[in-house]
């Protein structure tokens, strides 16, 4: 029997939930180790992920540890998607699916992350940087909208791990660029319909319930910061003060 895969995560960010969503979809047993953001860049976690980022997985069935979401997703698909629920056996389709997975990890994730940083987390408003990343976020949505024209899914006629990899970042666009939730996909109707297809799946609700519960355990607001803190400088000052106090 498959032993549960250990998923190390801090609950706030979108990247860990890419992996949990996939595990839910595949029905692979897993257990979550949820820990505070303050511990991500220090031992013992950096022994698991030298890059000091979440998530990371440890699979006791094979003895492997991995810590880049793209590599984790490909690994889980190859090991556990035997029936090709979320992938294609056909090699050509598989390479095309990987192409979109790479587009997510290199094109969507990093740039959406920078948009969130300059719009929300950074205390000083740097308008040209905000404009740069908001514009790139829209450009990425535009590319996806073109690709999805006349199609339900990125590759072929079924949902794959590439589609799912975009969901967690897309879902929080409103909190990244500070727009109304209903304007998240304004002008990108194909993307909106595609996103709604994904978040109507039971796996999504399960992930969001788990996230809410783990956030609450740590006393975090939906934006990932503790109650009473409004930007990253304040958060860092609070973490430092807490660390001093616990000495």
């Amino acid at each position: 029997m498959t032993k549960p895969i250990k998923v190390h995560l801090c609950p706030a960010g979108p990247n860990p939930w890419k992996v949990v969503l996939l595990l839910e979809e595949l029905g692979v047993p897993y257990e979550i180790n949820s820990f505070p953001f303050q511990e991500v860049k220090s031992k013992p976690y950096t022994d698991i992920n030298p890059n000091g980022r979440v998530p990371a997985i440890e699979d006791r069935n094979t003895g492997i540890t991995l810590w880049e979401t793209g590599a984790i997703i490909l690994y889980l698909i190859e090991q556990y998607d035997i029936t090709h629920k979320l992938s294609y056996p056909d090699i050509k389709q598989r390479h095309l699916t990987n192409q979109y997975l790479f587009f997510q990890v290199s094109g969507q994730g990093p740039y959406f992350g920078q948009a969130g940083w300059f719009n929300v987390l950074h205390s000083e408003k740097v308008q040209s940087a905000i404009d740069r990343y908001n514009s790139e976020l829209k450009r990425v949505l535009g590319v996806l909208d073109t690709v999805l024209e006349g199609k339900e899914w990125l590759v072929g006629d079924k949902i794959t791990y590439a589609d799912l990899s975009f969901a967690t970042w897309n879902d929080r666009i409103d909190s990244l660029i500070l727009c109304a939730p209903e304007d998240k996909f304004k002008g990108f109707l194909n993307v909106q319909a595609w996103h709604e297809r994904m978040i109507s799946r039971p796996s999504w609700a399960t992930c969001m319930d788990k996230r809410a519960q783990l956030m609450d355990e740590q006393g975090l607001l939906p934006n990932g910061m503790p109650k009473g803190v409004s930007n990253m400088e304040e958060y860092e000052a609070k973490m430092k003060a807490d660390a001093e106090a616990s000495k």
Partner: protein
Amino acid sequence: MSQQPDITLYTTQTPNGIKVSITLEELSIPYKVQKLDISKNTQKEPWFLEINPNGRIPAITDTFTDGKTIRLFESGSIMQYLVATYDKDHKISFEPGTREFYEMNNWLFFQNAGVGPMQGQANHFTRYAPEHIEYGVNRYQNETRRLYGVIDKHLKDSKSEYLVGNKCTIADIAHWGWVASAGWAGVDIDEFPELKAWEDRMAARPGVEKGRHVPDPHKIKELLKDKAKMEQQAAEARKWVQAGMKDDAKKSQK
């Protein structure tokens, strides 16, 4: 079924472009090169968007086993395709399903999701931004340094000559062009002795030497020694980078 390569590489002289030409040279695969002129926005022309809807280099076309054309973009995906299809002897990859195979992918993704985008932002704020934003320069130079530090420590701790399993793989090739142009992003490679030694080790490989000069000579090392020329080149690039940004911003407001 073995596949006869029929590859065209669409590229320009950048760290992402030479990932693919170096991979092809390391595997001794014949290929045609089509150079794109980014300064003239060729990558946004309809014929190229048919190949890559994201309008970025590199991209490739190849004739697949079904006799039809396969079009691929995203350097990481292209490299995985090339080794899966043409590296049956595992010269620059590991056998699928092995621990080393998954670790190789882990470092490949680290480059594509981490080093590339972050060093790219350092390039932007250091060389191309319309105004000097000290915070942006520092943020991305520091993040690039942090990521370099992760590799430097990994090379030291693993006592390996390459990132995974003591063999040069696509994970190493993906990093090389970026590490070789650290100075362009304002990062001093001398702060990372293990990484610097790795960079030289990679540069000594005939496949790297041949592949780095595609489609034009790779001159970053010479350029980094010439401050005046660096500033001149940055000024030229700044013009078309900013024009491209304006173009994108206009489109995104539609």
